[in-house]
């Protein structure tokens, strides 16, 4: 048994020793230990160096408030966890931890020299010094960050899995301390659905560190009884290791449950953490309170700890944090620590109380135990290098120390208490303000803005008996508010505390020299001192929000849980105003950091964004296709033969379509089935052209505008019956178009009798295109007359293809004779296979989206989203012909706005390069002259550009200012390398201008 571990008492399991390593040395602890308690049991206090001044720092707290013991957990692999609070890391066998600040170690830190430079490193030092010259900041930053040490994130992918789920309950109780347990019992007994969550591995809260008698039995037994009663209620769920880290709108509380963090990495196949999104009808915040630090000279030495933490290590873990202790306080709570230490046989050299003549049970018991009690006194400074060796005590009168009356006391442990701050974080997340209480000197919850109430210490009620009663009442009232009228049973009881002396303000401990303020630390994690706050005020920062940002007060991973109120009070005093006038800062989620993994849950990798593939996907894979990602779709891009690059493959595929027959998977196109007596009327309102006159089994191309007159989507719509249409949309626009149609129908034209539904996934489409496509189709389709006159261009037939019921559309996106064959999705693959076999001797060639793009560019057919960008009208695109004479379609009025009719708008044109082999990069800017003068006078940009085998030269589509009036003029495309490509503006049509090839 180590010198610092008691042989009995506490909640660790001495029959289960655990080995662990810290900074390369082997230690042992027990099951039930945290990393912090195990280190302290081995006499290790010094765990890190401070971030800026590299001062030695030790374990300070015992829970979420810990500012110093922020360690790297793991042995240098993908499971590593940076920035973990040792006070909340549960020990497991084989745990490896190391410090992140201090090189080569916190014991021998070469940067430790910085602490002697403190007079030259005030708040704002880095801003003032290293921001100039600006060009060097990046270099400075590299070194400053390495010196500071911020933890090391693994570079590998996170090997853990995570889970996330919703939960609903009547009453969510946050915190399983005395108030929370009383709340859960009362609410649960009424039959209300209760969730009780606590960040700790054990229920009990403050009772774990400060046991008491409840209902006449030791609190440990009472907790067990309460958990057993709750466990027997099927409508109650209790979660341990579950931190409610954020309270969001409409009573949604986010809870991160740590499922395997207390086990060796990779030792289970359970999710590491689970994010619970709890929607509660009522929330009881019973999150307790956090003890405050005291601000005196050299208050940051290892061995200086919160009094409540010292009590917790002793009572919960059986760990003695030192051999000879001094207790320093401005309130009654630390007397308990002094008495517990004394009872455990640890020498308590003195209790230093800043108050004059403190009365009550605590001081009486201390005096009775023979512990020296020095009142009207403060610890004015500490001694020791890497560990506390003694303190100086001075008497105070008013706000000053009495010079010449300094007492030196040797000790290796200083337990301090500056009072308590209720953990009002969740109340604040929920929108509630804080109210300053002059009696208890803390911010307590003001009016709640959501369905939350606070109980116990979180509400500023620090008495156990009253906390139990308040928790019970909160449980009863919230359950009743949810309609549960059952009996909440009797409230647990504890003995009422004897009256004591009130807490007395001690925000900044006086000391003999004003220069001492530069070593009185307010925020340990950011090395913010009392002098820094005074400096900020002198430099003109008076708002707490500004002072925080200038001094970094409260900006660490601990968010200033132990120091913020002291800092605010010091600011208030410097400004000569009250604390409420200075204001509190608003707490924002997260209370403690939540793992990104838990927030993502299982929504990572392939599940982050679903991948959509067509029924022919396997066929494409076997044919060697490469894929292009279009929205969520993976579309066959091109099918390279052995030795072919993309250019060669695309040229071959293009020639096959122009000269033989090509096969394209067109299944990804959006398809919307539209029916109803007003279907044609509806189409006339959402498209720019006429639809009522379209014959049954005829197809028509349509362009859809937004109300702003800009092209939104396009596609071919087929009339399948008098009241029945099949609309196609762009692949990427399918969902957007359906939403657009539904919105206009539901919000503007609910009188129209029309119904629409997506059928994109219900139909597979194969396109056969090329002069031999009719021949091919005739081999697999015998019940449709395919003759030119019998099945004219832009019409539709229903029949069977390869024995599959099919809709066949004679439309063309290539300019060639072409058929789109639509079959039920489940038969798409069979259709493709049948066409492949039937077309073998015709040289049938699969082609992908790239070839499709080249072939349509030959014809100047636009691709919405590539040649348009949401700012192009049909007129801009040279499509005046598609805009009907009617004036009631969406976007009509916008087409005549002055803005839309400006002749200098960008127009859709073709470009032919002077050098027929030079292909302009898509996106290239166009200039009137090849000039490098800045700013360049840009006249347009290239939207599509290819080498076209159809015309055996480079072609491009572009948007050029006033382009329709500039046909024949020269423009120059600027390349990234400074060169220019000269080109002539043409009409956007390069191949078969009369359109004869599709009409054969």
């Amino acid at each position, binding site marked *: 048994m180590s010198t610092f571990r008691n042989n009995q008492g506490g909640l660790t399991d001495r029959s289960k020793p655990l080995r662990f390593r810290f900074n390369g040395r082997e230690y042992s602890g027990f099951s039930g230990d945290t990393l912090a308690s195990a280190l302290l049991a081995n006499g290790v206090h010094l765990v890190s160096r401070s971030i800026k001044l590299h001062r030695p720092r030790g374990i300070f707290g015992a829970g979420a408030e810990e500012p110093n013991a922020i360690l790297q957990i793991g042995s240098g692999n993908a499971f590593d966890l940076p920035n973990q609070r040792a006070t909340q890391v549960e020990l497991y066998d084989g745990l490896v931890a190391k410090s992140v600040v201090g090189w080569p170690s916190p014991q021998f830190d070469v940067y430790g020299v910085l602490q002697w430079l403190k007079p030259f490193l005030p708040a704002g030092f880095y801003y003032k010094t290293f921001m100039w010259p600006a060009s060097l900041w990046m270099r400075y930053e590299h070194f400053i960050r390495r010196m500071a040490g911020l933890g090391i994130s693994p570079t590998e992918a996170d090997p853990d899995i995570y889970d996330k789920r*919703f939960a609903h309950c009547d009453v969510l109780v946050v915190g399983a301390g005395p108030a929370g347990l009383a709340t859960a019992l009362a609410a649960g007994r009424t039959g209300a659905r209760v969730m009780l969550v606590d960040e700790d591995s054990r229920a009990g809260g403050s009772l774990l560190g400060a046991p008491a008698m409840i209902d006449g039995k030791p609190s440990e037994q009472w907790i067990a009884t309460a958990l057993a009663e709750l466990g027997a209620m099927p409508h109650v769920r209790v979660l341990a290791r579950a931190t409610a880290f954020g309270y*969001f*709108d*409409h*009573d*949604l509380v986010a809870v991160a449950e740590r499922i395997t963090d207390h086990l060796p990495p990779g030792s289970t196949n359970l999710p590491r953490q689970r994010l619970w*999104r709890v*929607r509660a009808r009522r929330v009881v915040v019973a999150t307790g309170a956090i003890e405050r630090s005291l601000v005196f000279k050299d208050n940051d030495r290892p061995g200086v700890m919160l009094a409540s933490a010292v009590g917790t290590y002793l009572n919960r873990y059986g760990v003695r944090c030192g051999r000879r202790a001094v207790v320093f306080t401005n309130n009654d709570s630390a007397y308990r620590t002094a008495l517990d230490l004394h009872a455990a046989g640890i020498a308590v050299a003195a209790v230093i109380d800043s108050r004059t003549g403190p009365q009550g049970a605590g001081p009486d018991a201390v005096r009775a135990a023979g512990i020296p009690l020095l009142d009207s006194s403060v610890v004015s400074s500490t001694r020791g290098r890497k560990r506390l060796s003694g303190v100086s005590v001075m008497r105070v009168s008013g706000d000053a120390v009495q010079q010449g009356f300094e007492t030196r006391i040797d000790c290796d442990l200083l337990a301090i208490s500056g009072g308590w701050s209720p953990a009002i974080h969740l109340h604040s997340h929920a*929108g509630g303000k804080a109210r300053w209480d002059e009696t208890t000197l803390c911010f307590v919850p003001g009016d709640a*803005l959501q369905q939350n109430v606070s109980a116990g210490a979180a509400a500023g009620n620090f008495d156990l008996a009253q906390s139990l009663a308040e928790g019970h009442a909160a449980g009863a009232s919230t359950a009743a508010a949810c309609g549960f009228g059952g009996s909440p049973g009797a409230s647990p009881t504890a003995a009422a505390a004897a009256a004591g002396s009130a807490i007395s303000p001690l925000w900044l401990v006086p000391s003999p020299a004003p220069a001492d303020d530069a070593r009185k630390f307010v925020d340990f994690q950011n090395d913010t001192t009392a002098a820094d706050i005074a400096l900020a005020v002198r430099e003109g920062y008076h708002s707490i929000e500004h002072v925080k940002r200038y001094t970094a007060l409260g900006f660490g991973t601990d968010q200033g849980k132990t120091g913020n109120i002291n800092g605010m009070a010091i600011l208030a005093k410097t400004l000569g105003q009250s604390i409420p006038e200075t204001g509190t800062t608003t707490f924002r989620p997260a209370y403690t950091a939540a793992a990104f993994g838990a927030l993502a849950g299982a929504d990572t990798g392939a599940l982050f964004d679903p991948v959509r593939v067509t029924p022919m996907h396997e066929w494409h894979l076997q044919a060697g296709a490469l894929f292009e990602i279009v929205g969520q779709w993976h579309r066959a891009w091109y099918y390279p033969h052995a030795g072919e690059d993309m250019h060669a493959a695309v040229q071959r595929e293009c020639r096959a379509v122009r000269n033989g027959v090509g096969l394209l998977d067109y299944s990804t196109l959006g398809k919307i089935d539209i029916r109803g007596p007003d279907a044609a009327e509806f189409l006339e309102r959402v498209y720019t052209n006429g639809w009522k006159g379209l014959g049954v089994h005829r197809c028509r191309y349509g362009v859809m505008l937004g*109300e*702003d007159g800009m092209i939104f989507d396009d596609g071919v719509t087929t009339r399948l019956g008098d009241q029945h249409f099949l609309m196609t949309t762009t692949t990427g626009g399918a969902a957007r178009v359906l*939403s657009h149609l*539904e*919105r206009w129908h*539901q*919000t*503007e034209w*609910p009188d129209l009798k029309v119904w629409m539904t997506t059928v994109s996934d219900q139909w597979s489409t194969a396109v056969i295109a090329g002069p031999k496509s009719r021949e091919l189709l005739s081999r697999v389709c015998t019940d449709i007359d395919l003759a030119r006159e019998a099945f004219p261009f832009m019409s539709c037939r229903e029949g069977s293809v390869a024995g599959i019921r099919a809709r066949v559309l004679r439309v063309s996106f290539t300019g060639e004779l072409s058929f789109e064959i639509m079959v039920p999705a489940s038969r798409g693959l069979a259709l493709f296979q049948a066409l492949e076999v039937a077309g073998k001797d015709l040289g049938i060639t699969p082609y992908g989206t790239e070839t499709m793009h080249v072939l349509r560019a030959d014809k100047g057919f636009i691709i919405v989203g590539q040649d348009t960008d949401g700012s192009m009208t049909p007129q801009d695109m040279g499509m005046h012909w598609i805009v009907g004479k009617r*004036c009631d379609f969406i976007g*009509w*009025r*916008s087409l005549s*706005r*002055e*803005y839309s009719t400006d002749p200098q708008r960008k127009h859709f044109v073709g470009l032919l390069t002077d050098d027929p082999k030079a292909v302009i990069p898509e996106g290239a800017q166009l200039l009137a002259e090849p000039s490098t003068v800045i700013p360049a006078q840009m006249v347009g940009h290239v939207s599509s550009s290819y080498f076209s085998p159809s015309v055996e030269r480079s072609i491009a589509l572009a948007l050029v200012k006033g382009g329709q009036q500039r046909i024949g003029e020269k423009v120059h495309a600027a390349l990234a390398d400074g060169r220019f490509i000269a080109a002539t503006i043409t009409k956007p049509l390069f191949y078969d201008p009369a359109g004869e090839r599709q009409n054969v």
Partner: protein
Amino acid sequence: MLLIECPWCGQRAEIEFSCGGEAHIARPADPGSMSDEAWADYLFMRKNTRGLHREQWNHSSGCRRWFNVERDTVTYRINAVYRMGQNAPEASA
């Protein structure tokens, strides 16, 4: 995350919905008679209300119905939910 009561499906989490912005912007009956300025006002100008704000919401991952919500832009409290075509609640705040 808001809890929104779809008039058809009941209470659902905000992630099932999409917001369509300000409600009760009537589409002009005769756009042809409008000045460019008046038309642009209809097209682009929206209120930036502090307090009770009426907006369109769509249960896009649910029943796909559009409906109206009266929501306080300060507290995010939802004051009323009502169907398309129904009258807005009396000015309540």
